[in-house]
C-alpha cells in the first residue's frame, strides 16, 4: 500500500442514472506498467479521465502519490479539492488521447513547447532543446516545423506522446492510443510506447485493445467489467489461464 502511486478507494462515478464505476478499488505501484482491458462501456476511459482531472467523482477517494486527488485535507476533514490543489496534482500526470488532440494551429515544436513555457515557466531555448530530445525519442526529429495536419496519424500520436512527456509527468496515461490509427500505422506508435516502458521509470497506465502488446509490456493486466475490476494478474496469468468466465469470453471474442 505504501508504494502505491495511484490508489482508488471505493470510487463511485455516475453519469445520471448510469453508475460507471461501482466502488472501484484499484492500485498501481510506482513505476508499474499496467494495462486495462475490457468491453466497451466498462469504465476504462473514465478511470483515466478521473486521474487526469477531466472528470470528477461521486464517491470514494482517489489517491495519487499519497495525496487525495479530488479532495483536500483541511482542518482534519476531506473537502472537495480547490483548483489550486488540482493544478498541483495534475502536474504529476500526463495523458495521451485516442484522437491525439494536438493543437492544430501550432507547429509540432510549439505543440510540445507551449505548455513547458507557459505552464512550467521554462525558457524558450530550454523548452526547445527538451522538445528536440523528445522528438528524437519518438523518431520525428525532422518534423518539428510541420503542422499536425501535415502528419500521418501515427506521427501525430507520437507528437502527442512527446507533448505529454515534455511536462515531465511521473504517471503517463494512454487511452487507446492506437485505436484511431490505420492498421499499418499502429506499429510505429506501439514501438515508441514499448521503448518508454522499457527505458523509463515512468508509471504507465494503458487502456488498449492490442492484446499482444499489452502482454509484452505490462507488469500487470486488469480486466474491467461493468465498472469494477473483474480479474487482474500478470499478463501470463490473465491471458493464458484466466480464472473468470467473463474474462475468458472477452479474450476469446477479441482474439478471434
Amino acid at each position, binding site marked *: 500500500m505504501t508504494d502505491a502511486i495511484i490508489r482508488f478507494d471505493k470510487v463511485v462515478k455516475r453519469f445520471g442514472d448510469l453508475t460507471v464505476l461501482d466502488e472501484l478499488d484499484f492500485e498501481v505501484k510506482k513505476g508499474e506498467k499496467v494495462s486495462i482491458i475490457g468491453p466497451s462501456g466498462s469504465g476504462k476511459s473514465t478511470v483515466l479521465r478521473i486521474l487526469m482531472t477531466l472528470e470528477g467523482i461521486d464517491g470514494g477517494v482517489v489517491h495519487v502519490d499519497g495525496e487525495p486527488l479530488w479532495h483536500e485535507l483541511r482542518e482534519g476533514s476531506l473537502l472537495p479539492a480547490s483548483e489550486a490543489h488540482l493544478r498541483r496534482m495534475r502536474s504529476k500526470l500526463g495523458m495521451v*488521447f485516442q484522437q491525439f488532440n494536438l493543437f492544430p494551429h501550432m507547429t509540432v515544436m510549439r505543440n510540445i513547447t507551449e505548455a513547458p513555457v507557459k505552464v512550467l515557466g521554462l525558457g524558450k531555448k530550454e523548452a526547445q532543446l527538451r522538445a528536440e530530445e523528445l522528438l528524437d525519442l519518438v523518431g520525428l526529429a525532422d518534423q518539428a516545423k510541420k503542422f499536425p495536419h501535415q502528419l500521418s496519424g501515427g506521427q501525430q500520436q507520437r507528437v502527442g506522446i512527446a507533448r505529454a512527456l515534455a511536462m515531465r509527468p511521473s504517471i503517463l496515461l494512454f487511452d487507446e492510443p492506437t485505436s484511431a490509427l490505420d492498421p499499418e500505422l499502429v506499429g510505429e506508435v506501439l514501438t515508441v510506447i514499448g521503448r518508454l516502458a522499457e527505458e523509463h521509470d515512468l508509471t504507465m497506465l494503458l487502456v488498449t485493445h492490442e492484446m499482444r502488446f499489452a502482454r509484452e509490456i505490462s507488469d500487470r493486466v486488469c480486466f474491467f467489467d461493468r465498472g469494477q475490476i473483474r480479474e487482474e494478474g500478470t499478463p501470463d496469468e490473465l491471458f493464458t489461464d484466466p480464472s473468470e468466465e467473463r474474462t475468458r469470453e472477452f479474450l476469446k471474442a477479441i482474439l478471434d
Partner: protein
Amino acid sequence: MHWSEYLLPLAEGAWVTVQLTVYSTILGGVLAFVFGIGKLSSNMAIKSVSVGYIELFRGTSLLVQLFWLYFALPLAGMAIGIDLRLPPVVAGVLALGLNIGAYGAEVVRGAIQSVHQNQREAARALNFTPRQTLFNIVIPQAIPEMMPSFGNLAVQNLKDTALVSLISLGDLTFRAEQIRNFTQDSTTIYTLLLLMYFGMALVVTVVMHLIERFAGRWRMVGS
C-alpha cells in the same frame, strides 16, 4: 451643374463614410470579443452584463439607438447636470459600433463554442489555466471560424452608416441628398451613390478575406 462636379462633394462624403465604417467596425470588433467571451463567463455578473448588452442592442433598431445617443442622452445628462452632448461623429461611431458589437458578440460566442471539447481537455491535461486555454488554444482556432460572419457584419455596418445622415453627419448619403435637393438630378445622384457604396463594400469584403486568410494561415500550410 455637370455630373462630374458632383464627384468632389460625394468623395468628401465617402471619406466620412469610410472613417465611420472603420472606426465603428473596430469598436464593434472589440465589443464583440469582450461581450462574446463575457457571455461564456462563469461569473454571473459578467455573464449578465454581457447578455444584457447583446439583447438590448440586438432587440432595438439602430436608428433608435442613434437618436437616443444623439438626442436623448444629452437631455438625460442635463437633467443630472452632466454635459453628455456628443459630436455627431462620436454618436454615429458609438451607435454603429455598439450595434454591430452585439451581433458580433454572438458570432464570437458561437465560434468559441464550436472549438472541439477535446482541445480544452488536452489543454487541461497540460495544466494550462482556463485563461491560457481560452487565449492560446481556443480563440486562435475560433477566429478563422468567425471571419466569414464578421465579413458580413462589416458590410452590413458600411451600409448602416447611411443612417447617420439623419443626425446631419456629412457622410456619403447626406452629401448625395444635399446635391439632389439642389439639382433635382435624382437618377444620376442615386446611381453614383449605388456604385460608390458597392465599390466600398467590395473593398470591405476583400479586406475581411485577407484577414481571414491571415488568421487561418496555419490551415493552408502545405496544402
